[in-house]
């Protein structure tokens, strides 16, 4: 069972919500898919990790076989190959590893080399899986794909999405049965929530909203959720105390029974919604 936690806007509380959910849900897994800057383990506090390289395939040209025809450069949709004076220049960091250049190479001059772009780190009990993209690499998608291979179907998995609503969020959402949309009652929070809602609707993933830093005027946000028929699953009040504990690596669920209970209720609610949705679909079929 996979639950994605996303927001559109950065800094709304994806990590707070996803790590809290993982902590209160027995035998769950927490997956940090924000591979450009994974920070969830600051809260999960696992110490023993096994680190595995994530490898992608990039083309390599045998100059003795290459005729300089330029077919590889023409087929490449990502401008990762230039052909100059009969010589092939490869730009590995632009390559999307599709292998088209190798397929179109008539003399068979292109082979593929493995290149490491980062790691997947798996804790001993697999309760925490995090991806880490090497500095300077443009795309973490293969790492997010690798993280998903360590998620077990019979455990509840909470996937902490990267910010935004781009390819890396889409990749994280693939195969998820529910999306928790974390937002805050600010114009930016609402603006990006709208984008996140469009995304989950298009991907046909049921969703609910958690309002973080709640308080003040929330009318516009409440109206939007109402209009979109999005259930508001939880509100976390704006609190200086919570924020300073967070800065120390302490979550509300770590030291407060009522918060523990509140997140447990949220977790139960999400699981119940996923089960209800699955039952709905099976009766429809």
């Amino acid at each position, binding site marked *: 069972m996979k639950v994605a936690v996303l927001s559109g806007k950065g800094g709304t509380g994806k990590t707070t919500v996803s790590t809290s959910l993982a902590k209160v849900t027995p035998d769950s897994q927490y997956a940090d898919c924000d591979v450009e800057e994974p920070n969830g383990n600051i809260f999960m506090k696992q110490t023993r990790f096994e680190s595995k390289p994530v490898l992608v395939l990039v083309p390599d040209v045998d100059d003795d076989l290459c005729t300089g025809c330029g077919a590889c450069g023409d087929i490449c949709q*990502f*401008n990762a190959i*230039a*052909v*100059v*004076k009969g010589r092939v220049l490869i*730009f590995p960091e*632009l390559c999307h590893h599709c292998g088209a250049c190798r397929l179109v190479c008539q003399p068979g001059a292109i082979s593929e080399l493995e290149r490491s772009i980062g790691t997947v780190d798996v804790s001993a009990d697999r309760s925490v899986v995090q991806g880490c993209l090497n500095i300077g690499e443009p795309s973490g998608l293969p790492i997010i794909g690798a993280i998903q291979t360590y998620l077990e179907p019979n455990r509840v998995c909470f996937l902490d999405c990267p910010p935004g609503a781009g390819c890396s969020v889409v990749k994280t959402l693939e195969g998820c049965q529910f999306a928790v949309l974390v937002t805050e009652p600010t114009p930016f929070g609402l603006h990006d929530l709208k984008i996140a809602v469009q995304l989950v609707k298009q991907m046909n993933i049921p969703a609910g909203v958690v309002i973080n830093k709640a308080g003040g005027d929330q009318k516009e946000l409440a109206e939007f959720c109402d209009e979109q028929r999005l259930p508001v699953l939880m509100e976390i009040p704006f609190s200086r105390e919570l924020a300073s504990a967070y800065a120390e690596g302490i979550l509300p669920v770590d030291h407060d029974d009522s918060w523990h209970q509140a997140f447990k209720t949220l977790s139960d609610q999400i699981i119940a919604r996923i089960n209800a949705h699955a039952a709905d679909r099976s009766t429809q079929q």
Partner: protein
Amino acid sequence: MKIAITCQGKSLEDALDQRFGRATNILLVDTETHFIDIIDNEAMAPSGGAGIAAAQRMVDQGVTAVITGQIGPNALRVFQAADIHLYQGIPGSAKSNLEAFNKNQLSDLERFVPSHSGQ
């Protein structure tokens, strides 16, 4: 010889475009016939690798020199492999750059700026 000038518009009166890969247009000027060809460069590479794509186009067009403001590392690598000479453009119209080029007043463009500077 054929030279290329990155340009914000479609005529020699328009200003030099400081960007190479993401230049709005690239004017190709034949120094003998004075024939000008306009390359619409904007929609060339929406997903990335704009510098490489534009540089490949210069190679395919048989350009021998390029006048622009800034160049990224990837485009520079293509130009070096192709022996295409790069000149540092001066603020002003494409025409004033062309005149400065003809009088040998433009300096070489050898340093590159970080990727995506022109985005």
